């Protein structure tokens, strides 16, 4: 992934956010990570002119946010003409089949369940890191 791709992480749990960042860094991903713990703040940022004008970015999204559901953000991003090209990775504790289906229907690119077991969790995030390191993000 080119160095200019910004990672936008929407995650209300600061512990999770830190663990995710740690493990992404362990996979040698050095891209900027912008963290939001509220849906509102994240939407404000994503739809600001600066971001819309200066892509490219990748969104890491948790589904259970205090002020809205992650699927609301996903829906808004994927129905926006410019932002919809940004890859969205859902990273959440839920492994409910309906929820997973719904996210893919709404256009998410990858859905990852956070394993409770930390080795598995760290492994999953590091694999995501490896994946990110080889993927191409489109210009927005």
């Amino acid at each position, binding site marked *: 992934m080119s160095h200019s791709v910004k990672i936008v992480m929407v995650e209300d749990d600061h512990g999770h956010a830190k663990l995710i960042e*740690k493990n992404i860094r362990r996979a040698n991903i050095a891209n900027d990570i912008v963290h939001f713990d509220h849906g509102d703040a994240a939407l404000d940022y994503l739809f600001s002119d600066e971001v819309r004008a200066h892509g490219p970015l990748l969104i890491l999204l948790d589904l259970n946010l205090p002020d809205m559901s992650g699927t609301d953000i996903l829906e808004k991003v994927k129905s926006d003409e410019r932002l919809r090209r940004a890859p969205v990775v859902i990273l959440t*504790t839920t492994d409910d089949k309906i929820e997973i289906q719904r996210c893919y229907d709404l256009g998410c690119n990858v859905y990852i369940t956070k394993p409770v077991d930390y080795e598995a969790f760290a492994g999953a995030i590091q694999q995501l890191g490896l994946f990110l390191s080889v993927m191409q993000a489109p210009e927005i």
Partner: protein
Amino acid sequence: MKRIRLALRTFGGFLRTPTLSRSIIALLALAILLLLAVNAATFVMIQRTSAYNDTVDHSQQVRLASKDVLSLLADAETGQRGFMLTARAEYLGVHRRAVAQLPAVLARLDGLIGDDKELKPRIARVQTLYRQRMALMDHTIDLTRTGRIGEAVSQIRSGHGKALMDAMRIELTAIDAVEARRLAERTRQSERASAVTVSVNALAALLILILAGISVWLVRRYVDEIESARMELDRLNAGLENQVRDRTAELTRANEEIQRFAYIVSHDLRAPLVNIMGYTSELEQVGKIFDHQLTTLAERHPEDIEPEAIRAVREDVPEAVGFIRASTAKMDRLINAILKLSREGRRALAPEVLPMTAVVQSIADSLHHQVVENGGEIVVRDLPTLESDRLSIEQIFGNLLDNAVKYQQPDRPIRIVVDGELTDDGRVHYRITDNGRGVSARDHERIFELFRRAGKQDQPGEGLGLAFVRNSVRRLGGVMELESALGQGSTFHLKFPTRLIVSGDAGDRL
């Protein structure tokens, strides 16, 4: 004897229960009694009238006969007088004809009067007077015939004959008067009796009309009551249907809420677990780094190392981490269990006809290895078929058979029997009977609760199986009962409707 007692009891019950039919029957019985009374009265009246007619006839004949006697006597006298005045034989003929008829007429009168106490003395007197008068008349006729007319006239002049005649007339008139009085009396009686009969008939007719009126009124009232009860029933039924619909909707909503709750709870409980496990691992890493640092330090400056620090880093920290790990792992399993239950509750049911003998046999076969290991057996008898959700049924029987094998009594080979039949109320009843360790009575309810287990805790498990089974049985519209004694074995009773009816939105397709 028994039948009589039964009849008496039935009658007693009939008397004690004031129902419409009882009232109607009582009214009809009364009406029939009245009719019978009227009949009897009429019959008596007819009898009386006929008797009256007979007596009237009798009286008339008595009167007629007594008049005949009088007139014949008068004829005889007339003939006698004519003969005495004229001495012509034709007057004697008149006299003789009358005299010839008289004994028969008198005998008739005597016969008619018979033993009548009032009239018998009079007729006896008439007979005596008649004989004297006849003798007197014969004597005067003989005197006239032999030319001793003067003697005959003086005989008549003596007035003896007239006195006899007058006495006889008095007696006969008295007889006539008695009969006339009797006739009047009987007519009066008859009139009174017929008046009584008419009034009895009228009264009875009136009463019957009233009874009929009451019956009609009762029936009308009863019909009205039935009608209003029917309308009330219709109204209630309609209300009930609405109520059932509302309640069902409420229940569905409540169920959905619970599922949602279980889902959210399990999800939200999971999020902190990720942190606990994650940072525990991070701490472990930190511990390893410290350990490494300590080892290096111990090589260079062993005198600076506190033995407590070594123990803390090498024993206390790994021990604490181990406990945290084990507990969080257990918590994760419990949360997964709740999730599984919640998910099973949301799965759409697909009823199909299940050949239960084959279904249960295949579950039994999958346990074959574990069962024969200890010389045990699973016997599957002929089971009635069931129209239900295959997956749920397989899970229910799988769990129960699995439990039976798992919790067997170690000192005897396990023997499990599965049998069943159709019940009278149109349900299917299956039994799973084992000779395992059993469940003590105080745990019969507890073992069905989530995360609760009973007896010796020597088998792995989360206390989830039976909670899950009961949940599934209920979803299929069935009930589940346990019959068990500790150390003896258990029987699980499963009762299902023969056909599972799934309403429109009974679950998600998970």
